[in-house]
């Protein structure tokens, strides 16, 4: 059943929802995108039981808790948050699926404290997506600092873009390019802080967490 769903969702359900959205008129982009964002997360949640065993589940909980706690800890510095960086690091060391879940769970959990809203599915998707890609690109990211910095910039943009898409779609119910561009323009300073915080956190935390994880591996044979 779960296996079937895992195949059905990306291959059938998501396209169907999008087609329905397109056919029924241009008003429902927002709703369609919410459903697609939620559906995109489902396969990862469904395969949870088979991929997460033993100590890995604790590390997932710790990494996610760190990124959520980071939002509280760095509260005095606006928009300077370690969430994206933690998600990327988690993915770099534990793989794409791990990254996706760290991202998606960070979104749900931090909104548990700060309030769920229509933005939740988009945040889940945005952070999950960034985590997934970081897992795929783990090798170059671990090898080169330049790649890491470029990726930090890229992921800051991607996160902002996804969230701006959300803002503009919710404000219009459909996608209006001028609205989207305006939203992007207004949020440019915030995007800049995102990117700066991504770079700083990644440069500082990656070697640190990397060393820690390696230490744990030798000390406890993870």
């Amino acid at each position: 059943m779960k296996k079937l769903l895992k195949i059905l969702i990306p291959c059938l359900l998501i396209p169907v929802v999008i087609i329905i959205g397109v056919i029924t008129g241009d008003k429902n982009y927002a709703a369609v995108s919410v459903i697609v964002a939620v559906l995109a997360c489902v396969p990862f949640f469904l395969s949870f039981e088979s991929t997460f065993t033993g100590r890995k589940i604790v590390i997932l909980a710790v990494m996610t808790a760190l990124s959520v706690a980071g939002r509280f800890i760095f509260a005095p510095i606006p928009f300077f948050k370690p969430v994206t960086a933690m998600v990327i690091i988690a993915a770099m060391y534990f793989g794409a699926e791990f990254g996706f879940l760290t991202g998606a769970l960070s979104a749900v959990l931090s909104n548990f404290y700060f309030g769920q809203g229509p933005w939740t599915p988009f945040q889940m998707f945005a952070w999950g997506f960034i985590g997934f890609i970081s897992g795929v690109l783990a090798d170059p990211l671990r090898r080169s600092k330049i790649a890491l910095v470029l990726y930090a910039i890229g992921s800051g943009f991607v996160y902002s873009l996804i969230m701006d898409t959300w803002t503009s779609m919710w404000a219009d119910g459909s996608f209006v390019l001028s609205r989207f561009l305006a939203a992007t323009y207004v949020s440019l300073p915030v995007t800049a802080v995102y990117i700066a915080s991504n770079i700083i956190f990644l440069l500082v935390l990656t070697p640190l967490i990397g060393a820690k994880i390696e230490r744990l591996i030798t000390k406890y044979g993870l």
Partner: protein
Amino acid sequence: MEDFRIENLSFKYPKSDEYALSDIKLCVKSGEFLLVIGESGSGKTTLLRMLKNELRPHGEMSGEILFRGNNIASLDERESAKRIGFIMQDPDSQIVSDRVYSEISFGLENLGLEKEVIRARVAEFASYFGLNAEFERSTVTLSGGQKQLLNLASVMAMEPDVIVLDEPTSQLDPIAAVEFLDALKRLNDDFGVTIIIAEHHLENIYKYADRVLCMENGSVRLCDSPREVVRKLEDCKIAYTLPVSARLYRELNDKLNPPLTIKEGRELIRKFKNDYYISQKELKNENIAFSCREVWFRYEKNSADILKGFSLKVYRGEFYSVVGENGCGKSTLLKLLNGSVKQYRGRVKQESAAVAYLPQNPKNLFVKDTLEDDFKSVDNSYMELCRRFNLQNLLNRHPYDLSGGELERTALCKLLLTKPEVLLLDEPTKGLDAFKKQELGKLLRELSGEGITIVCVTHDLDFAAEFADRCGLLFDGEITSENFTNAFFTNNSFYTTSSAKLSKGVFRNAVTYGDLLECVKAVDRR
């Protein structure tokens, strides 16, 4: 019936030349209460972990461990999880779940029990351990003692045959520790659960044991009933950790049955109808290091007052101990003196700005990956202090790989690099064994001799009695009694050391075991 039979067990950690355990022979009967004692590093933890498949350390092992007649390694995973429970030191990190009831149900869920069975067991064991009122609470809000009871409850809910405990009370305050041990004894009596427990602090647990296993350098030195151990144990380091009454008995070479409790010890001491007393060492010191006058403090506008008209004067070079129950405001007091928080009324007058603060968890002082990096970030001239604290060999180590005693010394060393004049210590003896405590105490005395003022907040009355110049009892936000150490503990009847309880009415001012011995010997000489 036998629960465990251990035959010629030896064990070596990878990359280590020494045997952590060598040639252990042991047999544990069902329903037995076995107490394992020994210095830190004597192999207690390793031995206990060998008894649990899921926690057995990696390394070279020879010999055999039989659980109810079968090799333990061949025990089915489900059986192993269910029948042997294990409890570790750290009350916090063992907890998995965010709510009390879901923590108790955790193991039962793993066993895949029916929902109705789980529901019944969770309710039953929550009430057995007095956690009813806490049932829905978030686990982070529990006190250390409640957390450890919760850990015990969640292991017991799986209805194990054996519970193995590795220093479960070392992080608890004395009252919570007694509560925990009483609960354990009750389990042993009510259900006949076999208990195998390692402990450092023996005063309260020793009398409960059916047998005591003394370990030294990875091998069994002696394993016998508690009274026989008192009688037979040769003079060695472990002997110093025995309860005060037992130690006194050994000193006196009495023919009586060895005493284990204060009550029995009083029999021993009553025959000294003598008024020998320890003279109070009084310091004459006029230079005030800092003073508090009528200080009031609360954390938030609408919260309750923590300090209520608190006043205190501490002199330069003095070692002052603040004792008191949990939640009486001891840690808050240190934060106030450290400058992390501010009073809303009253005055705190610091003569010196150089204040160093040793937190309850000394790990919090370290942020780098090696000690050397950490020291360097404070001051480059660290080598001299390192030599003095005997830390040269540890410089490349990660702070988290240090043992409790090493960590405490390292933390002090790092603080001293800031050249403090006042040293604030929060529970510095937490988790240390008797020998490490002595080392720490001596070090602190040395520092105070050099003119550093020390304020130490502690539950550890024996430590305060032995090393402090003056003590104050913090109760309900103010110092309710304060005196030079010997007089302080002599005047208290409940909040005092075992030695003081033992010698009450016989020897005045004898508050440490050393004092007691001095009195006894002086009387003998006359």
